[in-house]
């Protein structure tokens, strides 16, 4: 059984001693990390540090070779598949914006809504007022109300990023994993995104992976730097960015 009898930890997300290797390459090496409920955490680190692999592990795409991954203190995520983990309330935004390009913005959000996701439920689905109100609200939040009937594939890169964040909102998970949300955005868009994430953080636990240090600074939250699949440093942005090792492997002198 994947549910512990008693709550082991108060953390929303608890990783301990996680290892993953691909054909001898250690992608994740004794990674330990905790995320408290309501917290927002920024993850930084050089390419190949294992940021995306860590998200793959949390969302069930990759199975770790060893280690503990607990969600909400009770659920062992390493034994569940993506669908089950999503149902538990972990949402994910991908590095490359992944929206359903051949469907409208509105339908993208409709698909993301956390309602009955069973075959029978969708086959006999009929829209409700509550659902369309929620969609309207999300559209407003991500500023895509005017584009609601456009195909998602026709959106600009920044709009796609927002649509994907909007899908996370519609999904309304307990924990949001956000991979590089501002890649390819203008400065204004980056700023707005930071505001949006802070707004989201008022009601959700969030983990953000990002390279853009200005953006991370703007979020103003605790930062974890990964290197070679393990935690290199953790603390405020100033503490981490003044850490010798971090400067050496990531920021550069």
């Amino acid at each position, binding site marked *: 059984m994947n549910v512990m009898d008693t709550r082991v930890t108060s953390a929303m997300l608890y990783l301990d001693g996680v290892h993953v290797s691909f054909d001898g390459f250690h992608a994740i090496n004794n990674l330990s990390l905790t995320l408290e409920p309501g917290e927002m955490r920024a993850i930084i680190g050089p390419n190949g540090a294992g940021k995306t692999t860590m998200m793959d592990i949390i969302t069930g795409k990759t199975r770790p070779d060893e280690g503990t991954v607990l969600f909400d203190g009770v659920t062992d995520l390493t034994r569940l598949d993506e669908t089950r983990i999503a149902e538990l309330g972990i949402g994910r935004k991908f590095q490359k914006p992944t929206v359903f390009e051949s469907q409208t913005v509105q339908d993208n959000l409709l698909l993301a809504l956390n309602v009955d*996701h069973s075959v029978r439920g969708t086959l006999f689905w009929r829209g409700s007022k509550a659902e369309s109100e929620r969609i309207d609200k999300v559209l407003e939040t991500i500023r895509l109300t005017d584009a609601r009937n456009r195909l998602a594939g026709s959106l600009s890169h920044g709009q796609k990023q927002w649509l994907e964040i909007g899908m996370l909102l519609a999904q309304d998970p307990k924990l949001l994993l956000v991979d590089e949300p501002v890649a390819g955005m203008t400065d204004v868009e980056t700023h707005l995104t930071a505001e949006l994430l802070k707004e989201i953080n008022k009601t959700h636990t969030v983990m953000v992976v990002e390279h853009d240090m200005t953006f991370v600074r703007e979020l103003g939250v605790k930062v974890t730097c990964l290197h070679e699949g393990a935690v290199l440093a953790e603390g405020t942005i100033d503490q981490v960015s003044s850490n010798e090792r971090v400067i050496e492997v990531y920021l550069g002198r």
Partner: protein
Amino acid sequence: MTPHMLTRSLDRGAAIFLAIVAACGILIPLSNLLLPAGSFLQVPTYLVALWGKYVCYAILALSIDLIWGYCGILSLGHGAFFALGGYAMGMYLMRQIGTRGVYGNPILPDFMVFLNWQKLPWYWHGFDMFWFAALMVLFVPGLLAFCFGWLAFRSRVTGVYLSIITQAMTYALLLAFFRNDFGFGGNNGLTDFKDILGFNVQAEGTRAALFALSCLALIFSFLICRSVVSSKLGKVLIAIRDAESRSRFLGYRVESYKLFVFTLSACMAGVAGALYVPQVGIINPSEFAPGNSIEAVIWVAVGGRGTLVGAALGAIVVNYAKTFFTSGVLAPYWLFMLGALFILVTLLLPKGIVGTFNAWREASRERRPAAASAAAEDGVTEPKMAE
């Protein structure tokens, strides 16, 4: 399903299509039966049978479009479901022959007497009853699709891997049905049918009725596909087609969706096969040949996948062309044409006839600024096949 679901969002194209099929289903049999033979407007019986065959192919094409066009599952073994449905019907028709066979055995079909079999194999029991055979027409292809899909989709076999193993599946069935001891007539298959539900299968009236039934089945299949793809489930299928792993991360159990639509599609293919057999008068293992299944896929590609109407249209157009060219002096060139069709459609007309027409209509509508927001049409633009 509620009537609401069956009629939901029937756009004009679909309505025209249904009207034409219904008109053909009524007028062609009437013209064949009521008008004097040789009259200008009379449709000769051989044409009724031929067109009935096309209609069956159109149902098969719909079933392929449902999984390929909307869910990205390219099955290269759908001919197997078609053939299994056909065999189920063929077994019923064999049992109906009774003592009129060459050997006059009341129970055993001729080929079993010929092979010196003493009693009917267990899996032939019950096929003397039409209702049982009709049930098996749905059940056998459905069960195979369910088992196959359950294994394949759960372990996430996708894309070309899935296509290749579906091809292996139909190939294995081809080899099996060629064997005499498998109990389905070996390479001769099942033939020499006499009657169906008491009517002579050769009679004009029966043929006309079978044609009308095929049209009815096409209309029903279309409405079922239509209601599936226009429900929220249809949107999920497209989501799976375009970004499978994204759908998983949203909490959709992708394998269940695929399994549902694959099994539904196999049952439809089975019905198509069952209607095909009495009209053609024979079912043999060559229906399992991998080439047949691939050919059926090209009908869908020609008509336009993910459009339903296009799939049915493609099946009829390509098969009409096949009949036209293979019966004349151009016969040796038919394979060249079919091959070229595969290549040209994939290279130059990736959306197919209907898809291209829809895109053109949409583009010209968008030039009229007011109607721009209507782009939400049921339509599916440019299916993206890559994972």
